[in-house]
């Protein structure tokens, strides 16, 4: 760690001597790259999780919180263990919808963003409707969708798309707009077609924005799958976590409700980790946000 960095790490603390401005060979505080860092990377969240669970258990025990208000982790674990097959198959259904919703949100959002980037007029004409879709509560229009779509599956996907597409659209639009104008000039000079400019310049440039949108959309797609199922889904056998959640709530099976929530959370965290990984892999070679600083 170099001197200035040491100073930085200590913030505004006054120093008593500048003699120690010398570079010592002390290792940096373990950062993501090193071996210890790699371990800590797993350890810290795990410790945090364990701590939280312990606090939860202790709180429930000390205040004697009834299980039908806030079940203890142990009870939730029992419920999870007992209802494993039911919950897992529900999770599978929800996951399928989630992935489909994510794909159509990404494709739809990016396609709309590209379309709108083509001209100020298209943007002016269409953006308001994108906003309207964003702010329309799906529960309110689900019946209409149900009437006009052939299958329930399609209705769920439409609902999910409405919930999840906007962050992708908004971020990608901002990213497409942020293209360095010198590079745009360069493409103009080389008589690049619109399409080439898009593929070789604007889209790569929008990538960091898009990926931030992707990280939002990942979780949102999961919510969207739940909301979509809730608003338009089948109530039958092939039902997903939304149905299990509502049923647990209705049947006052609060530990199972928490079990389902935990499954949902885990899935969300996994999706987030996956989107973050994708983001890291795509940016690590060149973008400030992902590159490892070496100088």
């Amino acid at each position, binding site marked *: 760690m170099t001197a200035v960095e040491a100073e930085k790490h200590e913030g505004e603390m006054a120093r008593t001597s500048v003699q120690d401005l010398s570079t010592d060979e002390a290792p940096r505080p373990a950062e993501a790259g090193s071996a210890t860092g790699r371990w800590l990377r797993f350890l810290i969240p795990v410790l945090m999780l364990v701590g939280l669970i312990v606090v939860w258990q202790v709180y429930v025990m000390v205040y004697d919180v009834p299980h039908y208000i806030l079940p203890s982790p142990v009870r939730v674990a029992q419920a999870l263990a007992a209802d494993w097959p039911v919950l897992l198959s529900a999770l599978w259904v929800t996951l399928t919808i989630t992935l489909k919703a994510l794909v159509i949100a990404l494709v739809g959002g990016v396609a709309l963003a590209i379309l709108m980037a083509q001209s100020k007029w298209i943007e002016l004409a269409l953006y308001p409707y994108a906003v309207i879709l964003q702010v329309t509560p799906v529960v309110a229009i689900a019946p209409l969708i149900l009437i006009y779509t052939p299958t329930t599956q399609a209705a769920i996907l439409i609902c999910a798309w409405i919930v999840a597409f906007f962050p992708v659209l908004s971020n990608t639009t901002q990213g497409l707009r942020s293209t*360095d104008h*010198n*590079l745009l*000039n*360069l*493409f*103009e*000079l*080389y*008589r*690049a077609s619109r399409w*080439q400019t898009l593929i*070789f*310049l604007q889209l*790569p*440039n929008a*990538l960091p924005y898009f990926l931030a949108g992707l990280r939002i959309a990942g979780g949102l797609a999961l919510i969207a799958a739940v909301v979509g199922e809730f608003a338009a889904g089948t109530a039958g056998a092939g039902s997903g976590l939304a149905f299990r959640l509502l049923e647990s709530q209705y049947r006052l099976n609060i530990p199972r409700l928490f079990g389902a929530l935990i499954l949902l959370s885990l899935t969300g965290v996994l999706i987030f980790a996956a989107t973050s990984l994708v983001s890291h892999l795509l940016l690590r*070679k*060149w*973008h400030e946000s992902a*590159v490892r600083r070496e100088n």
Partner: protein
Amino acid sequence: MNTAAIATAPDPTTASHAPLVSLRGVSKTFSNGTVALQNMSLDIGEREFVSLLGPSGCGKSTALRIIAGLGDTTSGTITWPGVRDDTTAKSRHEIGFVFQEPTLMPWATVFNNVWLPLRLRGVSRSAARGDVMEALGMVGLEKFADSYPRELSGGMKMRVSIARALITRPKLLLMDEPFAALDEITRFKLNNDLLHLWEKFGWTVIFVTHSVFESVYLSSRIVVMASRPGRVIDELAIDAPYPREEEFRTSSIYNEYCRKTSDALHAAMEGSEHR
């Protein structure tokens, strides 16, 4: 570069009568009120090597961009009387531009950055490989083909940018201080390479530089600009014959031209409000 030389050797000193590009009373005022160019008139003949010289902020880059067709003018006209009909087919590939900043795509490797102009013309990676590596070789960066721009030094980035501009063998080459970030030896080498290519392919070059020595060494004509408002204040024809080699740098005529150019620059600086 492909060595299929053009049959008729160019005679750079005698520009064809109709200029290639002609600026007439061009003004450019930015919306914040800065008058970058005022009533600038300039003819560039075909196969000329013209340097723009002038104080920092006098509008050299702006003029270059306007010639390239980037950005509007506030008033005045730019015409291309010298563009011959038989060059039509190639006109889409005419202009090469080295921006003042490297302007590389950060997400693309050096190879891909240099490949870009060819790629936009539909040349595949493998078909372009030879040309790209040759262009990189000229700027001494063959070994860095797979590096990303952030892994390069300032001068190396600029050299990538130069390689990218040269790879299309453009008829008209616009260069904005391309060698400012390079050491003298690399710079001299690239000076010679550029002159060589210019003569060989009959290019037209408009070259912005801050170095009086460089401008005299390279140019057939030096246009001296003054700042705020940016305008042409003096023109000097450098009538030394081409090809110019290293010994030209030590000749007395070279020193004489340098002195004259330096004086013109001084006059330009005094003429403008900015110091």
